[in-house]
Every structure is written in structure tokens, then in C-alpha cells.
């Protein structure tokens, strides 16, 4: 590859000056602009899904029906789940990959700049479909984010809108993934071999492969739902010879890898951050890479653990149970390596590091409750109780969301050119940490005591813990408004200009370019010495 051709293709696409105003964003092809769009979109969706979560928690503050009809309550939980997963967490990771990958691997832009624009602009219509569906006759989809038939076959047109929305979201993810894979595989700076890439590049690469493998499967499943609904096919309709359990198999064949699509990029982020604030290279880089790949492969073989309660031959239960427990091994390797990286390092606790450590601690809690649920006979007891709700929020909120906060604080100086206010960042962390636990920890007890999920009303003995959880949720939500003003404050100048490398231990390539990162970087790839310097981050020079 010559840098000449590289330059050439780039000229055709993006070298003309950025247009002003809205056109800059509508026609954006620059990876940084698109990354910014993704991140803001994800934030808006996070707030939207969050408001829905508060709607749920308000209803559950006391037993009895206070605010919503049960149907609307179901629509709230369903949309909350879909919006958080597909609208907030996944686009936020894609946005980060867009912003940071070219910078970190020394590429001038993503491989397909125009397709990148498309993959972003499919998202707002998809979100609009979901929101509009609240106002159509019959209301939004109310069968849970898993869309299980027969309910999803019988319900009204809100379900059709959700299905179309999922089609658009899936298409966007697939295009985004093609872009990420091609960029990482073909456009690394000379000298950066695969086993020398920053881990965030690795996890983004593996995640993108997972998405290409499973997003089409989900698209297929919802298409089958759609044709069962309107075109008289009988994939899942028992009356016509189909089987609703088949949907569950197909859904979770997508759904379990999806969980890792939301977890692997988080692993990548904390693997960048922890070494920097420990002032030590990442411990066990190569084992981290292997662990990432093994988790990805295993994730395809464990979907059945979501279906223990459906009725399954004992051998199949054992198969899924043991494979699920096996995933704990590579995950344990990762946790061990993060701790070993911190061990005897010169740690400092700036906000990104706090969120990263918070991630490691809480994700481990979520991992353990997951391990408990993986035991088939236990799961038949806990299935669809609040224990499950507690488990997956420890993984998704403390895992995906906290790692995203860590990433935002870590790279904010690079994005805006200004330092954020450290005190406010720390306040945001501690506030989120405390109220997160107040919200979700009691849910373990509720689940163990037998409170089912997805219900608007509950038995009296569950009152106290529900009240605590609801108070926690509202306080947690309040803290995220604080986060918003934190970011705005930084964009407006923060506590002053940021140097190109604000973190003492920051070695990776993005810290070699000025802050804020100029519109065009690495038009000529970084020289070998620079690349080599960047590799100190994982001690593989």
C-alpha cells in the first residue's frame, strides 16, 4: 500500500472544507463529525429510554395502579429495553469507534466515508418510528424487547413499526460494522500489526464481526414475525404448524451474542484507560486478545440458557449450562489482567479511572449473578423475576454505560480541546455509583423473594425494596442531567485548554495529535517511531 493512493481516494471524499451549519452534519463524511453525531444521538436516546425507565419506576414506587394502564406499562418496558439497547448503548459504541479508531490506528478516516453517513442517518428515522408507535391505535409494541410470539403476532400496528425500526437499526449496524472491520484490517499505520493494535481496536473488530453474524439473524426473525402477522406464513403460529419456541431459539441465537456486543467494546475501553492511570502497560495483552476472541466464539453456543424454563431435554440443559459457565473463564482472565495492571502501579483516580474501576467492580457483581442464573435448576426458579432485572442492569448499566462515561471523560479533552472540571466529573461518578446500587441492588432481594418482572402492580411484601429502588432511579436520573451540563461546560471551555496529551501515561496514537483533534489527521500515516512509541501502552514494542 502506498500512502499516495491513500491520499488520493481521500481527496475525492472529504478534503473540501466542512460546510457550515446543518449541512455539515447532514452531509457529514468525516469520521469525527459522524462520531459526534452518533454520540449525541445515543445521549438523546439514553435520556428518552431513561425517562421511560422513570415512568416504570414511578408506577412501581407503591403497590397498586397509580399512573398507567397495564398495557401502557408494558409498552414502557418494551420501548425502554429496545431504545436502551439499540438506540443508546450500541450507537454510542459505534460513535466511539468512529471517532477514535482512525486516530488510534493511524488512518486518515474510516474506509467508507459515504456509507458511514448513511449508517448514521438511518438511526433517527428508526428512533422516530419507535416514538411514533406510542401514538398509533393500540399503542406501541408491548411484548417485551424480546418480542416473543404469540403476543407479538397478535398485537396491533405498533408491533409493525417496531419491526421496521429494528430492520433499519440492523441495517445501520451492519453497515457500521463493515466499515469498522475494513478500516481496522486494511488501514492501520505501517508497523502496527494486528497483535500490536490497541485493545479498543481489537474489541471493536471482534464486536463488528459479531454484529455481522447476528444482526441479520434478528432481521430474519422479525421478518418472519412480520410475514406471520400479515402474509399468512406459519413460522411461529402453532395453528398453522409453526412453533413459538422456534422464535425463542432464533431470537436468543441473536440475543446472547448481542449481550457481548454491548460488553466487548466496554472491555476495550477500560483496557485503554486502566493502564494509563496505573502508569503501567496493560498486563497480559495477548491473553486479553485471546480472551476477547474466545468470549465471542462461545457466545454463539450458549443461547439456550435463556430458555431453561421453556422445557428442554436434560442433556441440552446441561450442555448450555456448562458452556455458559465456561465463558466465565475468559471473562475471569480479563478481570484478573485489569487488576494485575493496577497492582503496584502508581495509580491516580481521575474521573475516567474511577468509572473504569467502578466498571470492573460492578461488572464482576453482574458476572457472578449471571453465573448463578446459568445453573439450570436455579434459573427455573429465578426466571423472569427481578433477580434477572438486577443481573442484566449490573452488566448493562454498570458495564456498558459506566465504560461509556469513562470513555467520554477520557477522550473529552481530545474531542473538545478543553479539560473538563475534575471535581464535577468525580461528583458525577460517585453520585451515579451510589444511586445505581441503591436502585438495582435491592432488586436481587425482590427477585429472590419471587417478584416477577414486567408487572405494573405487586404484592404488599415487596413494597419497601421497590420504594428504595424507585428513589434510587430518580436520583440516578438526576445525576445524568448533571453529566449533560458537565459536557456542555467542557465544550464551552471547561477549566482551560487541554494539551495534546493530558494524561501522564497516555501512549496510544490519539495523544500524538493536537487537542482538539483537527478535522483531518494522519493524512500521511504516522512514522514508525511514532507508532512504536504508541505501542508502549500494551508493552508489545
Amino acid at each position: 500500500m502506498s500512502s499516495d493512493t491513500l491520499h488520493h481516494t481521500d481527496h475525492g471524499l472529504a478534503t473540501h472544507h466542512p460546510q457550515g451549519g446543518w449541512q455539515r452534519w447532514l452531509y457529514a463524511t468525516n469520521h469525527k463529525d459522524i462520531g459526534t453525531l452518533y454520540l449525541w444521538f445515543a445521549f438523546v436516546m439514553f435520556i428518552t429510554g431513561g425517562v421511560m425507565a422513570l415512568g416504570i419506576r414511578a408506577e412501581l414506587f407503591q403497590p397498586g395502579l397509580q399512573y398507567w394502564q397495564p398495557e401502557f406499562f408494558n409498552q414502557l418496558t418494551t420501548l425502554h429495553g429496545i431504545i436502551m439497547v439499540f438506540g443508546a448503548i450500541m450507537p454510542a459504541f459505534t460513535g466511539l469507534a468512529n471517532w477514535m479508531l482512525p486516530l488510534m490506528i493511524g488512518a486518515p478516516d474510516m474506509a467508507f466515508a459515504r456509507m458511514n453517513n448513511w449508517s448514521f442517518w438511518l438511526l433517527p428515522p428508526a428512533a422516530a418510528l419507535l416514538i411514533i408507535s406510542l401514538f398509533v391505535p393500540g399503542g406501541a409494541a408491548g411484548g417485551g424487547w424480546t418480542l416473543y410470539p404469540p403476543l407479538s403476532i397478535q398485537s396491533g400496528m405498533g408491533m409493525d413499526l417496531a419491526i421496521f425500526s429494528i430492520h433499519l437499526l440492523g441495517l445501520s449496524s451492519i453497515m457500521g460494522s463493515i466499515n469498522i472491520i475494513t478500516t481496522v484490517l486494511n488501514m492501520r499505520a505501517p508497523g502496527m500489526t494486528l497483535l500490536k493494535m490497541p485493545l479498543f481496536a481489537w474489541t471493536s473488530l471482534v464486536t463488528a464481526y459479531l454484529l455481522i453474524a447476528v444482526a441479520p439473524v434478528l432481521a430474519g426473525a422479525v421478518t418472519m414475525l412480520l410475514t406471520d402477522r400479515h402474509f399468512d406464513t406459519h413460522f411461529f403460529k402453532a395453528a398453522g404448524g409453526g412453533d413459538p419456541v422456534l422464535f425463542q431459539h432464533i431470537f436468543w441465537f441473536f440475543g446472547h451474542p448481542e449481550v457481548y456486543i454491548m460488553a466487548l467494546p466496554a472491555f476495550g475501553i477500560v483496557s485503554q484507560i486502566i493502564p494509563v492511570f496505573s502508569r503501567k502497560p496493560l498486563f497480559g495483552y495477548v491473553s486479553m486478545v485471546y480472551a476477547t476472541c474466545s468470549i465471542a466464539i462461545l457466545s454463539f453456543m450458549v443461547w439456550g440458557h435463556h430458555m431453561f424454563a421453556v422445557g428442554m431435554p436434560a442433556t441440552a440443559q446441561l450442555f448450555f449450562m456448562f458452556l455458559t459457565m465456561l465463558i466465565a473463564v475468559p471473562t475471569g482472565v480479563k478481570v484478573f489482567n485489569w487488576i494485575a495492571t493496577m497492582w503496584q502501579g502508581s495509580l491516580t483516580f481521575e474521573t475516567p479511572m474511577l468509572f473504569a474501576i467502578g466498571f470492573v467492580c460492578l461488572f464482576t457483581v453482574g458476572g457472578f449473578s449471571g453465573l448463578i442464573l446459568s445453573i439450570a435448576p436455579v434459573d427455573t426458579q429465578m426466571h423472569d423475576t427481578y433477580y434477572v432485572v438486577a443481573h442484566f442492569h449490573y452488566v448493562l448499566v454498570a458495564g456498558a454505560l459506566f465504560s461509556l462515561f469513562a470513555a467520554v471523560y477520557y477522550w473529552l479533552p481530545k474531542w473538545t480541546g478543553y479539560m473538563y472540571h475534575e471535581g464535577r466529573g468525580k461528583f458525577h461518578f460517585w453520585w451515579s455509583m451510589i444511586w445505581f446500587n441503591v436502585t438495582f441492588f435491592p432488586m436481587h432481594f425482590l427477585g429472590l423473594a419471587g417478584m416477577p418482572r414486567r408487572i405494573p402492580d405487586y404484592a404488599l411484601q415487596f413494597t419497601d425494596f421497590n420504594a428504595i429502588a424507585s428513589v434510587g432511579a430518580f436520583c440516578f436520573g438526576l445525576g445524568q442531567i448533571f453529566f449533560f451540563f458537565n459536557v456542555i461546560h467542557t465544550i464551552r471551555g471547561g477549566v482551560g485548554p487541554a494539551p495534546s496529551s493530558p494524561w501522564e501515561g497516555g501512549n496510544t496514537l490519539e495523544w500524538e495529535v493536537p487537542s482538539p483533534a483537527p478535522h483531518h489527521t494522519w493524512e500521511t500515516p504516522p512514522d514508525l517511531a511514532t507508532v512504536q512509541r504508541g505501542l508502549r501502552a500494551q508493552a508489545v514494542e
Partner: protein
Amino acid sequence: MTSLAQRNQKMAIKLAVIALLMFGFGYALSPLYVAFCKALGIDQAQASITQSSAALRLEFDTNVASGVAATIQALDTVQMAQAGGIVKTRFLLANTSDQPLKLRAIPSFAPVRAAGLLQKLECFCFDELVLQANERREVTVVLLVADQLPAEMGAATLSYSLQAVAQ
């Protein structure tokens, strides 16, 4: 040497093909699932369950008393009984020892309410069975189903336990 743009395009096409194949794989899971259920004898949702409420789901359970060198296996583990219909179900018996065996199958059923609904016309449990060394034999049970089935009944289980007959 091909240019970067060309290499990128090639890779994008390859990845898009993978995505398309995976879309097809989603659909392929449908016939695969049916095949798996058949091959493993796993009970699938049946149209008859949803079509008529006046149907009774019959499940067949088999056991062998300890120390008896024989096996028994229900060949049709689940059947739907229609009101007024006849249900025929098959079992495979095998003597796993080198000696002739004298056996008797002890029937039982649950729930008790099913008692009046099913009448045994023919059953291998009516008689003593003699199985030669290593003999395998298919045996049947024929049931007459009552003309009226209560809607709330749902399912009944019929169980057969092989016991040795004292010689």
C-alpha cells in the same frame, strides 16, 4: 498491487455476503428446528392443540423396576386425543439379558380426574409377558377417548413400570 480503495471494496463485498448468508441462516433454522425435534423425539407445538379445545394431551411415561434386565421405551411419547376418538400408542420392549424373562407392566395414570375419560381397549399390561433372551418386541396400547372432554383438563400422563414376575 491493488489500491487501498479496491481492497476495501473487496472486503466490504465479502462482509456483505456473510451478512446475507446469515440472514438466510435465520430462515434455515426453521426447517432445522423441525428436523431436530423429529430426530430427538422432542415434542413440538401442534396445530391440534390450538385448533380444538376439546383435545386431551396424552403423555406416556415408562419405568423399569431396579434389577430387571429389560428396557421399555415409548415410541410415541406424546399424542393428542380427540373426543370420541381412538388412540393407539406403541412401546418397544427389550430383554437385555441372556435368559428368558417373565415380566408384567404395572400401569398407572395422573391426574385422577382422567380416569373416566380413557378406556383401555387393549394393553400389553393386561397379560404376563415372556421375553426370550435378547428379544425385542413392539407392543401397543389402544385407548378409547370419551365423547366429551372437559376443556380444563389439558393433559394426562399414563405410566407403565416393568416388574419381574416371580418364577
